[in-house]
């Protein structure tokens, strides 16, 4: 089966980011396909490479990046939600006159159409968050 995942809460504050990650791993382990993971609302904070949690805790952002690298998963951060919250890639930083970018490896910034498409193309769209 083909799944899409939507993550609506930031890392650490809510369990939603963890649950979405574990669900995704379970989907892949069971031999199913992940069409896309879309980060919205405060969920965009899952995509900052500036995150530096204590060493004895899980690294939520790195975990996503590794998942994208190992399984070629499409991690999409909503551009409008990201701009409000200061998540930028090189192009967005340049376009908005900012002095740096902070997007983590494996993530890309794109529009809400990617979420709708994820709903259309997947057999199931799972939403994690409040």
């Amino acid at each position, binding site marked *: 089966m083909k799944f899409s995942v*939507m993550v609506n809460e930031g890392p650490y504050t809510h369990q939603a980011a963890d649950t979405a990650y574990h669900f995704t791993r379970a989907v892949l382990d069971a031999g199913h396909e992940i069409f896309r993971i879309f980060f*919205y*609302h405060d969920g965009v904070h899952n995509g900052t490479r500036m995150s530096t949690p204590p060493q004895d805790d899980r690294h939520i952002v790195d975990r996503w990046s590794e998942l994208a690298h190992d399984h070629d998963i499409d991690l999409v951060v909503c551009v*409008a*939600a990201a701009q*409000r919250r200061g998540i930028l890639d090189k192009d967005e930083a340049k376009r908005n006159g900012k002095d740096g970018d902070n997007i983590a490896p494996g993530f890309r910034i794109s*529009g*809400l*159409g990617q*979420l*709708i*498409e994820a*709903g*259309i193309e997947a057999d199931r*769209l799972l*939403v994690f968050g*409040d």
Partner: protein
Amino acid sequence: MKKFMYVNRHAPHGTIYPLEGLEVVLIGAAFDQDVSMAFIGDGVFQLNKGQDTGALGMKNSAPTYGALGDYEVTKLYVEQESLDERGLELNDLMNLTWEDEEADWVEKPSIRVVSRAQLSDLLEQQDVILNF
């Protein structure tokens, strides 16, 4: 074509969920799917008449609901029990309409008040449900 339902559960302006939810609905309207919205719990306050965010210093998202008809988002299901529990009635909500192209552009109401049981049936029929 898939059936998309956007379920709105939060009061307006207290969180960003209603505003960012509307942004999804407006973008999603371009995808030619069967779209509806549901308003349950405190979400019914999103449709309240006469919202004024001046004192909050926030953008008022309420006028955007008036544009939904132009985006062919014409089915706004409001749960009767949620209205009752909050002392609201249909008359307290904005008068939202859409123009029916197939009926000589006659204006029709977008808001449909449904019971909790009816909404449950509607949810059952959906392919994609997004919560805001």
